């Protein structure tokens, strides 16, 4: 048993150019290069990606699920941000 837990890294894959990177899962590694190698071997055995990002899980800043409602609340009552808020009479085209 190794004395010390290896750091956890989150793995993100861009499946083809033009698309964003997407979270795939996580892996353990002692350093960044090993994290990339392990991510490649674990998550792209069938050409699933053209680009890989790995980032140490403890470096990710995340919103708190317990505070989800309050945190996203400011956007909730601003329905005028959506195009459907505006009534445009029939006959007006290309709008």
């Amino acid at each position, binding site marked *: *048993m*190794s004395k*010390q*837990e*290896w750091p*956890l890294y989150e793995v993100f894959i861009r499946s083809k150019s033009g698309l964003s990177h997407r979270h*795939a*899962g*996580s*892996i*353990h590694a*002692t*350093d960044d290069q*090993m994290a990339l190698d392990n991510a490649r*071997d*674990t998550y792209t*055995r*069938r050409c699933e990606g053209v680009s890989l990002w790995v980032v140490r899980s403890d470096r990710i800043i*995340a919103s*708190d*699920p*317990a505070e989800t409602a309050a945190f996203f609340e400011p956007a909730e009552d601003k329905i005028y941000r959506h195009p459907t808020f505006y009534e445009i009479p029939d006959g007006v085209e290309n709008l």
Partner: protein
Amino acid sequence: MYTQGLDQGDKETQASAGTPEQLAAFQERIDAEEKIEAKDWMPEAYRRTLIRQISQHAHSEVIGMQPEGNWLTRAPSLKRKAILLAKVQDEGGHGLYLYSAAETLGISRDQMVADLLSGKAKYSSIFNYPTVNWADIGAIGWLVDGAAIMNQIPLCRCSYGPYARAMVRVCKEESFHQRQGYELLLTLCRGSAEQKAMAQDALNRWWWPSLMMFGPNDSESKHSAQSMAWKIKRFSNDELRQKFVDVTVQQAEFLGISVPDPDLKLDKKTGHYTFGEIDWQEFIDVIAGNGPCNKQRLEKRQKAHSDGEWVREAAQAYASKQAARAAA
């Protein structure tokens, strides 16, 4: 299945933390088919059930590399060897996807590995059977991966997000596993009488253990109801077993080999096959550690782990040295 609903004596399961309001709100989310994510509130028993199931599943993938790995150096052609190598590597990958899904629930990787190595953790009974001839590699792909697929497809809709996503990834890869196995047996069955006899012999030995993979009968499966309510499980053990039998018998007929069950017959009214009684004593024995290969499987895993110790140490020493240099 790969998880088989083992370790059922979890006494604390009923003592879920959380107020009645929290529990009701949680169940409401589940009923609305919302996914639960790692940092969301969940009942302690839900968390524990998932840790047990996902880690057992991961251990099964890892131990499952052994029976097939056993034939890597003896594959009859370079093509078959490359296929088998890729398949065994996939199983290792499945173990890794699943360990990382389990870790999101707050158990460490080292803890899970320690539980496997100490013999505390369970893994699927199927991997305690020996692979004595090359046809067994075909039978494993066809039957064992086939049974796994039956179980894993509904798990893609499991209420716990990280597990469901890991299963989607796994399922994409399983279909190759099953097809290469079936094709291997098809090749044998179209070969000499001796080769066909090998395929029949493999089916004879793997059929019943494969049916056992689905776990105890529903009447004996204590945790099923709760797992169904939580939508961790979507179908009962017996339902999945029946589906498996229904599709597999026809595939055996195509191969021209016969399922070793004198009681097997098609019920014209229901359209389902009825089949003979499973030897549950054998199942219990294998689970209890007394199957043909339990000891060997565990020892091999322990040896692989301790043989790798120096590599892990070196990697860690290298990383610390690099970090120290960067800091200087």
